[in-house]
């Protein structure tokens, strides 16, 4: 049962004197609508929907029926305001409710909102206060329904939402890769009591069991035994205690193990079995520890019995008993492992505390059809796991009080799996998990920190006409540096730390401060220049023999890939002189015949088209570094088609299709691709996938197994990585893979 009854939280009282750093917490309130609130025993979770206005770089083709002159750029870049939807979730202690409500009331502009959805055991207690303060009607929603809705939402939309907890491992949090089908699963919600819910589909779930021995038992019984009032303090006591002083172990009865049954001597035979005496005093710590074991084991056992009965292997744990407490995650994990002999893993959720609020919000937003869209966690606006854990992060706690935030952006495109993944359930996009690889983590965090100055410079340069860009860029620097610091201490904050997540976090932070596409002008310049060389390249290639031509085309493809502003080695060269950087770089990297897309990719696909191969050219939906975006590519292709009859014919006959991939990252997650792309891939019976570039073919997808032939190619533009892979900087990766027959048949 999700019976998070409101109990006293000990020392808390309404404290109106606190000052919030409100801009950082209740963001975008002026556009907020559709409020929902989940009030638990000690924490309140507020949810709202807002529209975020931010700048996006748009490219627009000039009318090029007019005669071209040399100096004219090929297309126009304009920065436009775009409105996107964002979900805000804020978690804070109940003590702040009144202050928060006052703040919201003062800043709420939108007056169309009439209702606030509410859930949680504390909703009724604060109903009057909310209605009075916000002038909104409190509309109660069923707690369990909200919980499940929220759970489905995070499992579907947040990769790395679920994790396994391993206390003694190098990285305590082992994130799970989202299974394409999240159902069926078991949710064990440990509030005051325990509810065991089987979820089979979005709206199909059933409470199949429960137990009255839950968090309330730990808290209530613990308070009686130890005279300690607060739940966290009880957990603290427990983490210091020795349960063997209180519990009767198998060895206390047998003198050793009960071998014939395989019961080890250290196993608890009888919880509190040693305390049935009045001659002895027991320490608070020991009793708390024994109680924790007793309750965790009991819940674990029941969970296993239900999982077995319903034949379920995915078992998620939530509720205030679990909520970010390493102590209880550890004991529950231990118990599940013991009772299932390792067959079932206890899974926890990064945003477990938000499930009720998310669900209540979704209930209220049904007319907006939030489940029709794909959503993505905004790393810039979200606090990350354990942000309010005092022992883990004293700095952050002091900075933002006890406020924790989650922001989700509505993605323009609906994202699905690439249909050609050999095994979508085991696909892992990222090549190196920096959460587990400490050396690699240290290197990359250092690398991104080193590169920060350059990124800031580039951002300012991209908006020379706007004087306040300097200030914004400085804010960006602070924000991203802070993120890097957080990740140094808590690499698990946003799921598995990867080069991809570091890059994406940077993009999110840049967007946050309205630097939507710092490389747009560079790209424009490069594209312009490359276009001029296009015909020359094509012609020189055509003159070669077949074999030489192939060799040359691949070389071109790889050479183009060297121009990558994300790679430090390259950007150092490119940035060394802001005026002449590009020319200089071109000379230094002389042997390549142009830039990536125009002089590398196009001649290559041209050859394919001539062979009679149909080509689907997928590119990013939104800017990331200097990667070409779909809208830029549309224009470029048009221009190339105007010069090149091969491309022109292919476009006309639909043998060349330009499709966006749904991504705005220099890396690529093949499990989150644009639905349209997936459809095209399926309909056209794609039988070869070419992935190009360091971000897409090395940092991600290096190990990706596809059900068709694949070619992964990139130039290693990072000496550390080259070293790691056993090569030299600017070495080439050219990986052609054919799926084995047996696997291909799937």
């Amino acid at each position, binding site marked *: 049962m999700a019976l998070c*009854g409101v109990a006293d939280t000990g020392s808390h009282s309404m404290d109106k004197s606190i000052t919030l750093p409100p801009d950082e917490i209740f963001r975008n309130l002026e556009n907020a609508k559709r409020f929902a609130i989940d009030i638990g025993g000690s924490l309140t979770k507020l949810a709202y929907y807002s529209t975020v206005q931010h700048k996006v770089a748009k490219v627009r083709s000039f009318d090029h029926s007019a005669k071209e002159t040399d100096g004219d750029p090929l297309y126009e870049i304009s920065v436009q305001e775009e409105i996107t939807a964002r979900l805000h979730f804020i978690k804070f202690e109940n003590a702040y409710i009144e202050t928060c409500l006052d703040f919201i009331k003062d800043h709420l502009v939108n007056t169309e909102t009439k209702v606030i959805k509410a859930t949680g055991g504390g909703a009724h207690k604060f109903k009057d206060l909310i209605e009075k303060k916000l002038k909104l009607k409190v509309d109660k929603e069923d707690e369990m329904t909200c919980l499940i809705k929220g759970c489905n939402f995070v499992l579907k939309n947040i990769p790395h939402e679920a994790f396994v907890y391993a206390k003694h491992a190098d990285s305590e949090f082992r994130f799970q890769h989202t299974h394409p089908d999240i159902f069926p699963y078991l949710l064990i919600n440990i509030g005051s*009591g325990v509810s065991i819910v089987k979820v089979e589909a979005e709206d199909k779930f059933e409470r199949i069991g429960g137990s*009255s021995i839950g968090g309330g038992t730990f808290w209530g019984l613990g*308070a009686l035994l130890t005279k300690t009032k607060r739940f966290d303090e009880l957990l603290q006591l427990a983490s210091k205690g020795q349960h063997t002083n209180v519990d009767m172990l198998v060895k206390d009865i047998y003198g050793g193990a009960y071998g014939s049954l395989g019961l080890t001597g250290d196993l608890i035979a009888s919880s*509190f079995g040693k305390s049935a005496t009045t001659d002895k005093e027991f320490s608070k710590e020991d009793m708390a520890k024994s109680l924790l074991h007793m309750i965790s084991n009991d819940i674990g056992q029941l969970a296993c019995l239900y999982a077995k009965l319903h034949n379920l292997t995915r078992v998620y744990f939530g509720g205030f008993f679990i909520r970010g407490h390493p102590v209880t995650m550890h004991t529950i994990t231990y118990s599940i492992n013991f009772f299932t002999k390792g067959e079932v893993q206890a899974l926890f959720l990064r945003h477990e505390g938000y499930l009720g609020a998310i669900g209540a919000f979704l209930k209220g937003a049904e007319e907006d059809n939030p489940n029709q869209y794909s959503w993505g966690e905004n790393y810039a606006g979200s606090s990350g796991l354990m942000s309010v854990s005092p022992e883990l992060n004293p700095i952050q706690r002091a900075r933002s009080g006890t406020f924790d935030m989650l922001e989700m952006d509505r993605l323009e495109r609906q994202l699905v799996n690439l249909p050609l993944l050999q095994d979508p359930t085991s696909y892992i996009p990222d090549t190196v998990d920096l959460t587990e690889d400490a050396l690699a983590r240290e290197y990359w965090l250092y690398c991104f920190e080193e590169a920060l100055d350059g990124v800031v410079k580039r951002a300012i340069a991209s908006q020379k006409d706007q004087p306040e860009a300097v200030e914004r860029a400085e804010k960006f620097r602070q924000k991203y540096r802070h993120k890097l610091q957080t990740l140094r201490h808590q690499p698990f904050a946003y799921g598995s730390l990867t080069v991809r997540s570091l890059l994406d976090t940077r993009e999110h932070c840049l967007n946050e401060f309205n630097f939507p596409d710092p490389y747009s002008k560079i790209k424009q310049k490069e594209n312009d220049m490359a276009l001029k060389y296009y015909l020359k390249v094509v012609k020189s290639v055509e003159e070669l023999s077949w074999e030489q031509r192939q060799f040359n085309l691949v070389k071109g493809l790889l050479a183009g890939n060297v121009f990558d502003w994300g790679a430090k080695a390259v950007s150092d060269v490119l940035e060394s002189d802001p005026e002449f950087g590009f020319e200089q770089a071109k000379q230094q990297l002389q042997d390549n015949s142009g830039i990536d897309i125009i002089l590398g990719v196009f001649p290559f696909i041209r050859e394919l088209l001539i062979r009679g191969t149909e080509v689907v050219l997928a590119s990013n939906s939104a800017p990331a570094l200097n990667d070409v975006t779909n809208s830029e590519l549309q224009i470029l292709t048009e221009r190339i088609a105007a010069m090149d009859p091969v491309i022109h014919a292919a476009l006309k006959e639909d043998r060349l299709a330009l499709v966006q991939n749904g991504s705005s990252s220099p890396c690529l997650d093949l499990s989150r691709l644009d639905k349209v792309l997936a459809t095209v891939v399926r309909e056209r019976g794609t039988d070869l996938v070419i992935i190009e570039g360091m971000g897409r073919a090395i940092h991600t997808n290096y190990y990706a197994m596809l059900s068709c032939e694949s070619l992964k190619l990139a130039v290693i533009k990072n000496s550390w990585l080259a070293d790691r892979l056993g090569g030299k900087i600017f070495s080439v990766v050219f990986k052609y893979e054919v799926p084995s027959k047996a696997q291909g048949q799937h």
Partner: protein
Amino acid sequence: MKLKSSSKPAFPWFGMDIGGTLVKLVYFEPKDITAEEEQEEVENLKSIRWYLTSNTAYGKTGVRDVHLELRNLTICGRTGNLHFIRFPTAAMHKFIQMGRDKHFSSLHTTLCATGGGAYKFENDFRTMADLELLKLDELDCLIQGLLYIDSVGFNDHPECYFFENPSDTQNCIKKPCCLDNLFPMLLVNIGSGVSILAVYAKDDYKRVTGTSLGGGTFLGLCCLLTGCETFEEALEMASKGDSTNVDKLVKDIYGGDYQRFGLQGSAVASSFGHMMSKEKRESISKEDLARATLVTITNNIGSIARMCAVNEKIERVVFVGNFLRINTVSTKLLAYAMDFWSKGQLRALFLEHEGYFGAVGAFLELLKSSDDA
């Protein structure tokens, strides 16, 4: 160890089960002793028989459960009474000393022992009293003892009983019954901890699972919470208490039933849930706490047992173990829980000799091993 190779083992006939909290002892008192035999009987043996049968309490803590005595039992060609004695495991060393003082080792008998203590105290028996134990597996003994007692009955009454109308507190009545089709049964042995066995035939069983929340937990928590000292005291308090002052019920949270999930308002939502509140902690009685502890432990055992029964597809659930001694609160609660949560599919059964089956099994092994020899 070697046993004497006679068709009948020499007297005295004992079976012992040394558990985590209690030692259970069964003693066969032959009533068909001939004059000749009596003359030959060594003084030692006579004094033991006299000591055990003429007292109902031994030392400060030993007790003979007179009401459980099986009379006129014929076994191995001898007729007599089977006595049931228990004392705390904490007194084990005193017991061994007594064995030494009474020169038990001179009696040429085999001491058949089961339970964890048979292993734990083996060396003490040897070094302190020159006694060798024949150690036996506790689950084997439990099942053999249970089947035997059920087969001989309880002085012409059935050993087994159940509760009629378990879901109706007013009309819930204890009814004797015969276990006709014994197998398969789920056997739930509630001692200090709990073991749950699925028994398919006399020699075919498996331990399904166990839980550390058992009788020891009830008593241990009661001692800490109320300052009581004995099981009897704890049960006495529990019988007077009201657990709803301690536990949070569904209706305390939802104001009534939680209809969405078919939960009655009177169901316990959170054991000890009210104790999260300081005011409630300060206004609670020891009796209420003892009752809540008892109800919590009992319901939990019922819940796990029920899930095991469903998983193992067994409809008959037999509860044994000393936790159920003089504990009608728990037996009725278990009967109710099995019936209610299974919608009448499961039936809870109980046995009069609750905690003694292990000791009886050990005792049977003594007779059996001499047959084999």
